[in-house]
């Protein structure tokens, strides 16, 4: 035994004596993880969060979360002698006087953008493949929570330097809180320690940003990962993959190397971004003062949709009985995100109610096989994208030489008109893909080989799909719409159906009435029909026999025979 092996075993025994670690290792060192690239999107979020923790800790050693006004005398010439908060001055110090400070600041900010972006694409992957179904609903909820926390955390983070751009964002945030009915002004004064801007907000935001939200995120990430570990990851359907197994590579050594390597890749990309691309050049914005503003004031990308909502909202306000209800502010900044995140969180439960399916699912759906879910997701993304584009309307206007008023009106119309259109188009697209899969199963794949019959007829030969592709095409559940039981009982009385059940049936109809999926019974019947036809073809018809000889394929011969007979195979 080499020294290393001896040392390793010694450590293992030491720990095992005390916490029984070898039992856990025995079970888990060979744990299998499936290996699709789309399963790594969540990992991008995890690793960028670790980057945030590391760079954030570094920054916290130099940043001063204080709004006390001082006169700057650091090395950035443009602002020497200017009065500014200590927070802003310390940010300038990090950027210009601490070696590697600017790098750490930029890496931190790029990683933050990547963190939320990764969570967003990960959410889309989980949604479109139906990975949120039982038993993973709780994980979905935790993911939605993580996304929400990440957005708040990012906003808090880029507001800490107290520069003109982010300070404007804080002013807008205060205006939003103020507009909340009944409690708005109290909330605003409590949060800011008085009127805006006060002197308490940056230190409070700092604690939220470095302690409270990261703690919550860490807790949720831990629970999220524990569930993924315990429930095992889902996998795409394919040969050898069932609801009862996981196919992939073992934790040690393959997954450790791949996942560990991916961590370094994500980290490296963040650092390279921080090396080569300027982000948040606070020295150009100047310190925050409530009398200055810059053209092109935008929040970071993940808040862009809310800013867009504020820009597109018509100026509705209700003044009655001595009170003001600012719908123009309240709806886009509180109501819309509230509804969106609530619907997002509730979706797994909503879909389960509609399908009535209480079984576990470990094989993922192909998005085309869940046409309404996919279309609903596409519709939601369209809604989000229109709002997001709205948030950058002035940049669009200047760069494409458009009138900003026209842009705003166009986006207002698109916001209402485009999502339903996208829904219909996406659903139709999914259904046509389903039909293509069905045709493949029933008729085989077009080979491009044309057979000319002695009678002058042209036939194209079809090859049947391979076994493994058949598994893929047949994968996924085929649901029938729920039907209301309206048959009257012996006394001629129809059962009473509640409106909730009626809605459920209607939604179920909407989800599943249109589909082209083959059930296993239909496929079996079709295959049997082919087999019979092949037998017949073998007995009679020299053409069919010729086909069989040329292609060596009984099914093709059967198809030819059927075509000759003038019937189509799926008229079973």
């Amino acid at each position: 035994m080499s020294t290393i092996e001896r040392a390793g075993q010694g450590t293992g025994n030491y720990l095992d004596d005390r916490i029984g670690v070898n039992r856990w290792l025995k079970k888990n060192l060979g744990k299998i993880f499936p290996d699709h690239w789309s399963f790594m999107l969540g990992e991008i979020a995890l690793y960028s969060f670790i980057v945030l923790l590391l760079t954030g800790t570094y920054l916290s050693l130099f940043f001063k979360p204080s709004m006390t006004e001082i006169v700057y005398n650091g090395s950035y010439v443009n602002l020497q002698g200017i009065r500014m908060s200590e927070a802003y001055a310390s940010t300038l110090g990090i950027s210009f006087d601490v070696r590697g400070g600017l790098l750490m600041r930029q890496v931190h900010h790029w990683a933050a953008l990547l963190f939320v972006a990764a969570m967003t694409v990960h959410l889309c992957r989980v949604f479109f493949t139906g990975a949120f179904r039982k038993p993973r609903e709780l994980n979905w909820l935790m993911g939605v929570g993580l996304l929400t926390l990440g957005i708040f955390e990012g906003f808090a983070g880029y507001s800490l330097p107290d520069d003109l751009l982010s300070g404007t964002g804080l002013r807008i945030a205060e205006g939003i809180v103020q507009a909340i009915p009944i409690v708005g002004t109290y909330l605003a004064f409590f949060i800011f320690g008085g009127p805006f801007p006060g002197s308490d907000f940056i230190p409070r935001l700092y604690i939220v940003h470095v302690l409270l939200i990261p703690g919550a995120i860490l807790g949720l990430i831990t629970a999220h990962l524990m569930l993924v570990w315990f429930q095992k990851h889902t996998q795409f359907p394919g040969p050898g993959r069932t609801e009862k197994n996981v196919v992939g590579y073992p934790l040690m050594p393959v997954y450790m190397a791949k996942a560990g390597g991916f961590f370094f890749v994500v980290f490296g990309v963040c650092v390279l971004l921080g090396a080569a691309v300027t982000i948040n050049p606070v020295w150009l914005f100047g310190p925050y003062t409530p009398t200055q503003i810059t053209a092109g004031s935008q929040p970071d990308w993940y808040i862009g949709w809310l800013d867009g909502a504020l820009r597109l909202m018509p100026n509705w306000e209700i003044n009655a009985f001595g009170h003001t209800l600012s719908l123009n502010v309240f709806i886009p900044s509180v109501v819309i995100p509230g509804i969106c995140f609530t619907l997002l969180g509730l979706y797994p439960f909503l879909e389960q109610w509609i399908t009535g399916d209480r079984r576990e699912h470990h094989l993922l759906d192909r998005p085309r096989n869940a046409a309404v879910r996919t279309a609903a997701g596409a519709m939601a993304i369209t809604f989000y994208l229109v709002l997001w584009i709205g948030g950058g309307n002035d940049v669009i206007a200047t760069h494409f030489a458009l009138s900003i008023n026209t842009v705003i009106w166009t986006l207002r119309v698109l916001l209402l008109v485009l999502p339903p259109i996208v829904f219909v188009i996406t659903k139709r697209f999914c259904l046509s893909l389903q039909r293509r899969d069905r045709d493949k199963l029933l008729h085989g794949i077009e080979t491009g080989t044309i057979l000319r019959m002695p009678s002058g007829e042209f036939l194209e030969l079809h090859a049947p799909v391979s076994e493994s592709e058949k598994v893929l095409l047949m994968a996924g559940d085929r649901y029938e719409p729920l039907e209301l039981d309206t048959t009257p009982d012996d006394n001629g009385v129809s059962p009473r159906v509640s409106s909730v059940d009626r809605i459920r049936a209607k939604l179920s109809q909407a989800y599943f009435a249109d589909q082209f999926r083959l059930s296993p019974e239909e496929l079996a019947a079709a295959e049997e029909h082919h087999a019979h036809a092949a037998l017949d073809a073998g007995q009679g018809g020299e053409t069919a026999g010729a086909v069989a000889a040329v292609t060596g394929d009984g099914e093709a011969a059967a198809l030819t025979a059927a075509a000759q007979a003038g019937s189509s195979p799926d008229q079973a």
Partner: protein
Amino acid sequence: MRTSSVTRPSRATQARRHPWAFVVLIGLALVMVGGLYTVLGSASAAQADATNPDTIQQGHALFLEGCSSCHGLNAQGVNGRGPSLIGVGAADVDFQVGTGRMPAATYNVPQVERRTVQYSQAEIDAMAAYVASLAPGPSVPSFSDLDLTGANLQAGGELFRTNCAQCHNFAGEGGALTLGKYAPSLTGSTPRHIWEAMLVGPQSMPKFPNTTITPLQKRDIIFYLTTVRAQPNPGGLSLGRVGPVSEGLFLWVVGLGVVIAVAVWIGAKSS
């Protein structure tokens, strides 16, 4: 240089005129004219020319040819086409024509755009002189007006952020106004044109006369703008100095793109 075989002049003329006298005289005249031109011409050529009736006449001719169709034969303006130029001053003409905005290709636009400059500086000076002769108005900046020695960079920044950034953005990259109008990017503007724009308030831009922004403050602002646009971007690629919109776009396309590409590489079967 070979001397030509010229008849030697008589003793009387020889005493009065040196063989080189003519050459020296021409040389002196050239030096004097050139010197005068250097002293008076470069700094305030327009001012010097503005009072010259020939310059004004040349300007008038250029005006009739290139400007009167929209601004009227007497620069009184034509309804729906061009405003009156009476009282706008030489500075406005120098700015509009000097940045190529005038002559406008069409007047049916929300805002006239910068184009290639159509006239030489001398012609612009002439037209400016003509317009200035119609009625008193802001004049072009003098050499000392644009002398940035001793200008205060930090004060210029404060003034820029208070008066200019709301339309032109924190780095002078420009911004949107209503109905298709815009505040243009200042990254290519000369100090002269910046001064004139502040003074004159072209198109939608407000006027900042010397009582609102003093000449000293104008110099500070010009100094800040010309310094900032020449300064390095310490963090790397500037992405246009437009703010979070371009940063978010870059992240989604490049940042996320690269990372997902690596993920696809990880998941792919290897040979």
